[in-house]
């Protein structure tokens, strides 16, 4: 009995179902998107047989260049703010007592899991015309300002949603640095800042890099935040894809945009994955 069960490829039965599932609901749909993207748009017919690269050429039109430029720029600003806010938090969490760490981790992950819509809704209440910020300004005798529906609002929303994705990888890589390394550096005469710059910062670099790539690729593909907190004229690529699919029904154009963005983000995410794996290998090698 046993030898025959050994030779049967049980792994294929186990991994098969999800693999088939992903082929049909991930690979085929994106292959379909790729197909759409090389066919011309027609307002009357869903599908025209001839091939074209016009949908990709269109990305170099001024409107789309601006769209991509704005998206990539907002992603960059979001990532930078996330580093500034997230790094100290990650250090704090990595070196906190277990109980404090558990509580803080809960408070970090709980908002992360709540739907983005709800967090954006909270910001709309805070930043709105009669919101918390403007109430405070009026109470101080200042003029209320228009905060919502601007790029600033979008960045605030994006940072709020994505900061945990920066904190978690950095925290993981700082935790791997033994605390007595910090003591050793300080025993050798370094003050805290010197120690930080020479030991913690370089050793946590893989976590920092994967956090940045993660936050960047998430924020350039954001939809809900710019759709609800942004200006209708300053849109991001995600909104353009949504509109072209569901509002103007220009599926070939939406497909070329989606495919460009997907290649960009998946490329970045693979780099992030590689950075964290590489860090893991270094650890096991030590």
């Amino acid at each position, binding site marked *: 009995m046993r030898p025959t069960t050994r030779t049967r490829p049980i*792994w*294929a*039965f*186990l*991994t098969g179902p*999800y*693999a088939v*599932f992903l082929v049909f*609901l*991930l690979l085929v*749909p*994106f292959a*379909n998107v790729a197909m759409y993207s090389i066919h011309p748009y027609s307002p009357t017919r869903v599908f025209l047989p001839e091939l074209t690269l016009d949908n990709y050429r269109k990305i170099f039109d001024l409107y789309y260049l601006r769209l991509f430029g704005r998206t990539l720029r907002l992603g960059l600003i979001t990532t930078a703010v996330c580093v500034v*806010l997230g790094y*100290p*938090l990650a250090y*704090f969490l990595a070196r906190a007592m277990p109980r404090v760490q*558990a509580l803080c*981790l*809960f*408070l970090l*992950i*709980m*908002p*992360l*899991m*709540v*739907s983005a*819509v*709800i967090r954006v*809704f*909270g910001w*709309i209440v*805070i930043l*709105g015309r*009669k919101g*918390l910020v403007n109430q405070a300004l009026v109470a101080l005798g200042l003029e209320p300002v228009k905060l919502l529906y601007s790029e600033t609002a979008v960045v605030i929303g994006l940072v709020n949603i994505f900061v*945990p994705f920066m904190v*978690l990888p950095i925290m*993981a890589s700082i935790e791997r640095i033994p605390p007595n390394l910090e003591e050793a550096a*300080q025993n050798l005469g370094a003050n*805290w800042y010197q120690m930080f710059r020479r030991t913690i910062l370089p050793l946590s670099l893989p976590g920092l890099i994967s956090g940045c790539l993660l936050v960047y690729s998430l924020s350039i*593909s954001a*939809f*809900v935040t710019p759709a*609800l907190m942004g200006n209708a004229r300053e849109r991001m690529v*995600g909104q353009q*894809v*949504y509109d072209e*699919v*569901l509002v103007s029904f220009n599926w070939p154009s939406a*497909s070329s945009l*989606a495919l460009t*963005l*997907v290649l960009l*983000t*998946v490329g970045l*995410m*693979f780099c992030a*994955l590689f950075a964290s794996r590489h860090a893991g290998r270094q650890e096991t090698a030590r």
Partner: protein
Amino acid sequence: MSARPPRLLLPFVVVVYIGLLAPLVVVVAVSFGPSAAFEFPPRGLTLHWFEAFFASQAFVTALFRVSLLVGLLSAALATVLGTSAALGLVRFRFFGREAVETFFLAPLLVPEILLGAALYLFYARLAIQASIWTLLWGHLVICTPYVIRSVTAGLVGQDPRLEEAAMSLGATRVQAFVKVTLPLLRSSLLSGAIFAFIISFSDINLALFLSGPGSTSLPVHIFSQIQWQGDPTIAAASSLQIVIIGILILVVQRIFRLRLVV
């Protein structure tokens, strides 16, 4: 110069947490306030908006008939798919194993909004009408990797010799799995299932594309209500989601290591 971390670290962390939690606190506070104009801080305490929530056919359908139903189905199916995939990846060595592993985590690398668009165009091509089923298939794509991660973490910490011992004592492979491995995996299975539920329950990016007229999920309904400038019933709906998710995350933290799943 000080040898300890800067004194400003703790206040800084507190400020970041205030910013992080502010939107949730505000939403919950608004849902209990009497004003219809999203007033914060609220001037009183009322359950009016929760009554309005349960009186609204659209909100009740979105929560019970769509979001909870799809969430539970996603959790159940993702747990089966994900556990079997994790077992195959951890317990067996085969050619291309790493490639399969990367492929199985690929749904986490693809932006959800684009996956939603791609699935929408795919269903449209096949002329499949939007329903809770189209939503469920989409959610299974993004939920299963969380189960795989959680169960993989549980399996890696488990000695395969336990199963071998059961088999040498006369159990078949299946018996050994059901009586030894599965009970030991209990907490990572449950964590994976809970996370699958949460991912489905709070998803908006796929649901925006895959919800049909009768299958609008709670986040999508909240989204359209925000666009149409609805009343604090939105806040009540949001509070319900926050409470459900908060409790579930607490459970995961109790029984398993939260970070192994996220």
